[in-house]
């Protein structure tokens, strides 16, 4: 599903965010990428979303070599990947329903399909009764669940979750991880970027540990080792 071959991301001023990373993630896997702040975790997410381009190496997502992706192809890539952000990134002036439906509208999905699909997605994350509310009227955990529902709108084969529990208390964080686990059981590949030790240890899934932009460990059933 994801294949990084010798990927390096260097910023002006000789700042290296990740150095010569090679990793392979199979379809259907649930992988946690852990590391301290500045280890390069979020850089990997940004590269996979084509928010930034790699300085060296090759990036393949779902069989698509996106190393030299053209600007006009980026929206197409993003419609195939679901992304959940730490700060939810919800559209404040749109209702919960509209936030989720927006992801479908940008692809030109028919209105009838959107009307049927959005309530289903909100039901998966337990927000079927909050459709008409605005993000600011919801708790952090609920907003993050809206973000997950939106990420699932395209039925992506890959879901990137960049510190999805970073702004949540432990109870809400656990609920979010449970939702992600449920989605993974339905066949979606999950890459969870986090520095939450308890969550990673409780998951008992593959763990990739980054330190100073390099992979220092990759365990099939891992623990948070830093």
């Amino acid at each position, binding site marked *: 599903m994801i294949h990084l071959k010798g990927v390096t991301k260097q910023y002006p001023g000789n700042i290296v965010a990740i150095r010569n990373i090679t990793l392979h993630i199979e379809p259907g896997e649930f992988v946690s990428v852990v590391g301290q702040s500045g280890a390069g975790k979020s850089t990997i997410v940004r590269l996979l*979303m084509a*928010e930034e381009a790699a300085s060296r190496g090759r990036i393949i997502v779902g069989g698509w070599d996106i190393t030299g992706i053209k600007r*006009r192809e980026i*929206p*197409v890539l*993003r*419609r195939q990947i679901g*992304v959940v*952000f730490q700060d939810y*990134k*919800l*559209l*404040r*002036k*749109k209702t919960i329903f509209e936030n989720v439906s*927006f*992801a479908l*509208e*940008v*692809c*030109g*999905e*028919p*209105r009838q399909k959107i009307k049927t699909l959005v309530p289903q997605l909100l039901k998966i994350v337990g927000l079927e009764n909050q459709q008409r509310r605005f993000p600011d009227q919801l708790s952090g955990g609920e907003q993050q669940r809206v973000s997950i529902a*939106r990420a699932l709108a*395209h039925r992506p084969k890959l879901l990137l979750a960049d510190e999805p529990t970073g702004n949540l208390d432990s109870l809400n964080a656990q609920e979010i991880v449970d939702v992600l686990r449920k989605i993974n059981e339905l066949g979606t590949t999950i890459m969870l970027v986090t520095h939450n030790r308890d969550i990673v240890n409780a998951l008992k899934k593959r763990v990739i540990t980054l330190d100073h932009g390099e992979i220092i460990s990759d365990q099939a059933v891992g623990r948070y080792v830093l």
Partner: protein
Amino acid sequence: MFYSIWRIIKFSSTNIWRNFWLSFITTSTIIITLMSVSLVWALQIGLKQIISSAEKRIDMSVYFYPSITDAQANSVITALKTIPGVQEIAFVTKEQALANYEKMAKDSPELLDPLSAIGQNPFGSSIIIKTNEPSAYSGVIEELNKPQYKDLIEGQKKDYEENRLFIDSFSAFTNKVRLSGLIISFIFAIIAVLLIFNAIRVAIYTQREEIAIMKLVGASNWFVRVPFLIETAIYSAIAIIISGGLFFALLYFVQPYLGIYFGGDVDLLGYFTDNAVTFLGLEFIVLASLNVLVGSLALRRYLKV
């Protein structure tokens, strides 16, 4: 495609309503700017009408000696007609001059008595010259100062010089007024463009996070850009309707007072009513072009996500 267009229009109108205060402030800024532009425009038109009316009132009378025949006077007229800028020359015969005098003095016997005493028509014929613009009188005066007309025309050279001085200074004054009007309009147009430029930039800036989010969930640049452009076009259309309404209401209120001061010479209401389509259409075209240009430039920065 159909879905996209419908959705884009829906997004634009919903966005305007949900960002009510931002929409209100942006539209108000555009309304105030348009009102100011309209007022400067009206001032410019008013000045033009005043100048043109004053120019129309200027004419120059040339009086011939009583002994001069109509044929001799006609030779002067022929020569004057060849001068560039001469628009009209009216010939007043000796008989008409006498009739005019008698009409004017009909209630004043003391003015008519001398005529009876003379026993003949003491008036010479005359001509009244009008030109397209005041500066053309210089050519007329130059012609009349030629030696061959010395024995035909009454009055001294000095009279013409006084005329020349008045006409020249009036000409210079109107030119200065016109130039000042143009400079003020130009400066104001630049200020207006900057104000609108800023209003639209601020409107887009406040929504920069939304733009980034739209891009991150897979919206194409077109899908993000067009609703914003439609939004600013709607702001413009509303602003033009409101400012146009206010402007015409103001003209309707002020026109009677202009009539009192300037007679029928200054008719701003008539001018703007006759040219309403051009006036409002031009405002919309300039504003819409400005919106597309500024909107595209301002958005470009936030679309690089």
